[in-house]
């Protein structure tokens, strides 16, 4: 369904991705783990065409993204929903307008119909009654849930999650994980998440891939990742400052 082949990307001479290969099957939930600044967000943005690779190919449903013009890319994006790390809610719009943004632009539904659908989606994420609030009136967890409701509003086939649990307390983080699982079970979506929260990764993933030094160094089920002997992956999943991944100011 989604395939990244030999993706290279650099910014102002700084190499970020150095040949990433990743395959996501239909209905699968893949979590990409990796340290801060390892290029996880950059990788995710390639899947939805927000960034174009310097080299390599991104295909979605067998369509090479580089062959699409602007309209074609927008048509493809209607199959996607994306939850941003910062939620990225439109702060000049009410909650229901945020959730119904895609519906309003890409369907012929009237405003009351869009609002009804937005309210339904908000109910799915446990936010009944919040539709008339402004994003500035919401807590971090509520913002994430509104972001999720917006991502699922157009009933996408693929959901992308950029650090879905970052910045949330452990209970709220678990609630978001539960919602991600619920979305997958109820909407039968394919999902790709990036995170450095291992608890979340184990919970929501069918497959975990570790991004390190610009490439995917290991792919496996959560069990396989837990039991790997790869020293880099072990250091990361155990959260140790000392090891093959060098943290500035720390010895090996």
């Amino acid at each position: 369904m989604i395939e990244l082949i030999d993706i290279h990307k650099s910014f102002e001479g700084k190499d970020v991705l150095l040949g990433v290969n990743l395959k996501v099957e239909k209905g699968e939930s893949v979590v990409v783990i990796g340290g801060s600044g390892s290029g996880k967000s950059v990788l995710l943005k390639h899947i939805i065409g927000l960034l174009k690779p310097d080299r390599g190919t991104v295909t979605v449903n067998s369509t090479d993204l580089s062959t699409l013009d602007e309209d074609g890319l927008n048509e493809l994006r209607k199959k996607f929903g994306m939850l941003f790390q910062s939620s990225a809610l439109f702060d000049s719009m009410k909650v229901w307008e945020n959730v119904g943004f895609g519906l309003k632009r890409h369907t012929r539904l009237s405003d009351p119909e869009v609002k009804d659908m937005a309210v339904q989606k908000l109910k799915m994420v446990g936010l009944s009654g919040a539709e008339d609030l402004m994003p500035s009136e919401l807590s971090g967890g509520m913002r994430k849930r509104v972001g999720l409701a917006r991502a699922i509003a157009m009933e996408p086939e693929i959901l992308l999650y950029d650090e879905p649990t970052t910045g949330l307390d452990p209970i709220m983080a678990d609630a978001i994980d539960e919602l991600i699982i619920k979305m997958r079970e109820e909407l039968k979506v394919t999902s790709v998440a990036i995170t450095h929260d291992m608890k979340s990764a184990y919970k929501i993933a069918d497959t975990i891939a570790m991004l390190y030094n610009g490439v995917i160094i290991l792919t496996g089920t959560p069990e396989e990742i837990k039991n790997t002997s790869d020293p880099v992956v072990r250091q990361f999943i155990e959260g140790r400052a000392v090891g093959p991944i060098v943290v500035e100011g720390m010895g090996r």
Partner: protein
Amino acid sequence: MLIKLIEAIGAFIEKPAEGIGRCMLLLYSVLKHIVKPPFEIRNIFKQMLEIGVNSLPVVLVTAIFTGMVLALQSYTGFKRFGAEGLVGSVVALSMTRELGPVLSALIVTGRAGAAMAAELGTMRVTEQIDALETLATNPVKYLIVPRFLSGAIMLPALTVVTDIIGIMGGYFVTVILLGASSKAYLRATWDFLKQQDIYNGLTKACFFGAAFALISCYKGFYAKGGAEGVGRATTGAVVVSSMTILISDYFLSAWLFK
């Protein structure tokens, strides 16, 4: 030595040249999307309200006092050589040809241009522009086209108001405060004012409106680096737009008022 000098000049002009290039590419994208449906009618009206109607109070105050001080200075100056009868002409020609478009443009840049850069900059650094794209919405079409069109339409409209109010300010000072003849003032206003003066002034205003909107949107759209980046974009938008207005004013005037 010579190579070093050329290198220094190159380094000095590299960034502005890159900025101009990217701004022109953005202009191309804006023009492409203006003619492509769907048209963002609701957004355009919202921006026209913001740029035009909401700028009216400050434009009115500026226009009336500019007209008044222009009349005051001209009257007292011209009196030295007995030409106070020309005050009406000076005010009318200055306002329509020069001060109306330029002052309106500078004021709207300070108000609406700064707001545009800050709003788009904040949207950029908080990933709201990325979010628009993931929702299959072209951000240039959705955000920049309405602002660009509103700038190009509303600045001439504000200039018409500035021209009229400025001339009325001049009338108030010359006739009411300084006691000159009302009839003579009005005759001096109409006798030397040509329709072309007004049209050319409005043409300049249209260009200034499009320019400040494009530059402010460009600065905000490509902002990076969090709150500091938004601040830089906002300052840059006002400075570069104001400079562009003042510099292009000379060349446009030289071309239009041949």
